[in-house]
């Protein structure tokens, strides 16, 4: 009925074009940038593992990504998750807020995921070389893994019937479930690594022959020679050395043990022996006796507490003087009180006691058997690692040695310069440096059962762990969430510095200019 309204664009001021054509990034005179500082967990890790990086992957439940990151430095997270003493956790800054992140549990989760989901396929052989590894313990397994990863043809020689070295023989079932170890080893075999068991290099096959047959050899026979105390009666019947004792048990062999049991020593082997002995039928009382104080015990505190909890009697500051036998085997030991001062051990023979026993387990540590080296030429180039070189040390150090050896062997075979090892000299980010005001991702205060929730408690000290605070607080929409991570968008960033100020991990720096 009425004429049409004029369709004139200039009727009134209006617009619906997004303001995104306006590149406000041009306003900047300071620019935020990612900067990776050393996190304390990484600082403590003997494997130099990229813990915040894989922790972030765990948070996002990206198990494969977590495994990929872990395996750069540690191919056996399931095993280390159980056996490493985890210095990373001791340094964890979160402990200064509420509870440390349960890194071991996270490691086990990723490790177990890998064991459950990975179908290892035979690595394509690059025909670059054949390498022999002597000893199938942590160092040998690690070296074999990394060489195999690079396409080398690897054969592992093991003198025992079972593979795994210290994993299999030195560490009890209750600390490392055997099914986990078995699966780990089978994955290595699936990859094409050959294991020859029951073969003692040196006696069954001369070492020189290995050097002749293979392009390179890695020696990782560990430290198995028991250290002796030298006290009277040490060679009596009923006296075991700890490793022999544990080995037998872990191999499933019969072990004759008479109650009560006394374990002498303060390291992990001593504690393991005590706890293993307690689990044997017929053993009702186990004492663990150490010459220094409890605080000075080299064994992990968690292990010691567990032992006590299980009923092991702990006696400190006592040095064994003499072992007495009654009949065919041991009956008692005499101990003297001793303490440590600046000069060393001070023994007080006036304060001594006798303890009766049916079995004694000496856990005074191991030594390296260097006889294998006698068969080599003085000028030979030798690749060796693990306890064989360092003396009794730890699982992560052995694994690390294996990895580095693999790099070195590869370089040697391919005629490349020897790898340069980088040591991060940065000071790790301290707790007081973190900006915890936001506390948004700190709502989950205590240890969480769910791995993803637990991983979200990680503060990512010094590295970005995709907490998203920068994204949350950017007034200029200059942070983009991309596949679970957060990228700074320099087209729009005005350089206000809120992200820098608020980043809980202190993973950003402000640089001058655009």
């Amino acid at each position, binding site marked *: 009925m009425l004429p049409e309204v004029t369709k004139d664009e200039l009727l009134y001021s209006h*617009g619906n074009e997004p303001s995104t054509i306006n590149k406000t990034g041009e306003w900047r005179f300071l620019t935020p940038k990612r900067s990776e500082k050393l996190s304390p967990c990484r600082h403590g890790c003997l494997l130099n593992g990229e813990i915040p990086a894989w922790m972030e992957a765990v948070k996002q439940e990206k198990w494969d990504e977590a495994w990929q990151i872990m395996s750069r430095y540690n191919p056996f997270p399931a095993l280390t998750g159980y056996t490493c003493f985890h210095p990373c956790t001791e340094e964890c800054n979160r402990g200064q807020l509420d509870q440390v992140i349960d890194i071991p549990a996270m490691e086990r989760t990723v490790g177990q995921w890998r064991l459950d989901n990975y179908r290892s396929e035979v690595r394509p052989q690059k025909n670059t070389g054949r390498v022999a590894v002597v000893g199938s313990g942590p160092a040998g397994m690690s070296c074999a893994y990394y060489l195999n990863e690079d396409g080398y043809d690897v054969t592992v020689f093991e003198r025992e019937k079972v593979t795994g070295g210290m994993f299999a023989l030195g560490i009890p079932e209750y600390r490392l479930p055997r099914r986990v170890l078995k699966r780990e080893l089978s994955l290595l075999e699936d990859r094409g690594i050959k294991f020859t068991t029951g073969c003692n290099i040196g006696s069954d096959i001369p070492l020189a022959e290995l050097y002749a047959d293979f392009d390179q050899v890695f020696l990782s026979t560990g430290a198995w020679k028991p250290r002796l105390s030298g006290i009277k009666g040490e060679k009596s019947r009923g006296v075991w050395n700890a490793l022999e004792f544990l080995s037998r048990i872990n191999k499933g062999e019969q072990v004759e043990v008479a109650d009560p049991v006394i374990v002498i020593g303060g390291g992990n082997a001593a504690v393991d022996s005590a706890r293993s002995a307690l689990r044997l039928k017929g053993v009702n009382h186990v004492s663990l006796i150490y010459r220094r104080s409890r605080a000075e015990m080299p064994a992990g505190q968690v292990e010691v507490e567990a032992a006590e909890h299980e009923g092991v009697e702990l006696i400190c500051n006592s040095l064994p003087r003499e072992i007495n036998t009654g009949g065919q085997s041991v009956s008692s030991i005499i101990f003297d009180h001793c303490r440590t001062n600046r000069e060393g051990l001070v023994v007080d023979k006036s304060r001594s006691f006798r303890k009766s026993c049916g079995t004694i387990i000496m856990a005074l540590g191991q030594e390296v058997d260097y006889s294998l080296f006698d068969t080599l030429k003085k000028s030979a180039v030798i690749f060796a690692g693990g306890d064989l070189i360092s003396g009794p040390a730890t699982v992560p150090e052995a694994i690390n040695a294996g990895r580095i050896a693999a790099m070195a062997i590869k370089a040697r075979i391919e005629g490349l310069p020897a790898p340069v090892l980088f040591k991060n000299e940065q000071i790790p980010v301290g707790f007081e440096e973190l900006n915890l005001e936001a506390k948004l991702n700190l709502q989950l205060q205590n240890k969480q059962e769910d791995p993803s929730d637990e991983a979200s408690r990680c503060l990512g000290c010094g590295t970005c762990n995709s907490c998203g605070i920068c994204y949350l*607080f950017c007034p200029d929409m200059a942070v983009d969430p991309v596949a679970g991570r957060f990228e700074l968008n320099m087209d729009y960033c005005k350089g206000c510095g809120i992200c820098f100020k608020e980043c809980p991990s202190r993973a950003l720096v402000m640089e001058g200019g655009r």
Partner: protein
Amino acid sequence: MRIEEMNRESEMLYAGHNACPGCGAALSVRFLTRALGSNIAVVLTASCWSIIAGMPPLTALKCPILHCPFPSAGSVGSGVRRGLDAKGKHDTTVVVLAGDGGTFDIGLQALSGAAQRNEDYIFVCYDNEAYMNTGMQTSSATPFGARTNTAPYPLFKEGQKKDIMQIMAAHSIPYAATATVAFPEDLENKLKKAQEIKGFRFIHILSPCPPGWGTESGDTIHLSRLAVSTGFFPLYEIINGVSWKMTCMPEGKRVPLKEYLMGQRRFKQMEDIRVDALQEEVDHDWEMLMEKIGSS
């Protein structure tokens, strides 16, 4: 609030807007629009956001924005709500956005009228505590003792900050709440809660302004947090004008006000006697608030 689950699609604010670096108001509107969703209509009165909204043909928000004259925010909101209802758009949330000037001063009449009529929309005041868009002049929301460009040293803002929340409580509106940008989850929860209530809802958001307050642009969140932890700007809700509830309590004792003041140039030359007076006022207001919360 799981940040990892957030995505760009839920955000209503476009990049490329021309708010100052570190602008608290930009963050306030980002959070509140994200909380309310896309079915909203914004009424926007003269304030910094009139400019941040962009110059047509550009716009900075993914929803309709109706600009209106300075004093009229409360009234135009009433009109838009009724107009949308006449057109059958009952599900659209109407959000009226005003600065402190358009709420406390020139807009107070319209705010009061609309609140008294229990108009069915959400009135959001983003408060940067002065007329910032025109260059930092005093408003009744400016805190006691602050310097502005109409109260330059040795002058200072006399009189306390107007207690807009008590004014709103006196109107017995269904829902009033304070919020600030350092606590986005609290802010968004309040907006979501408000969205479900019918009648007049008022949200007062403290939005730090780096150029106006004389602070580093990167300190916006830090200051906003301090405002809460000193008790200067407590975070609470008022239901129906009678029931007061704290939503975000600072842990431990309240931080001394001086810590909050010292990072801001507008308080830099504040004489000790006035700092003390302001601390007393904050303490007193805190006690009164606690009483109201206690007896609710």
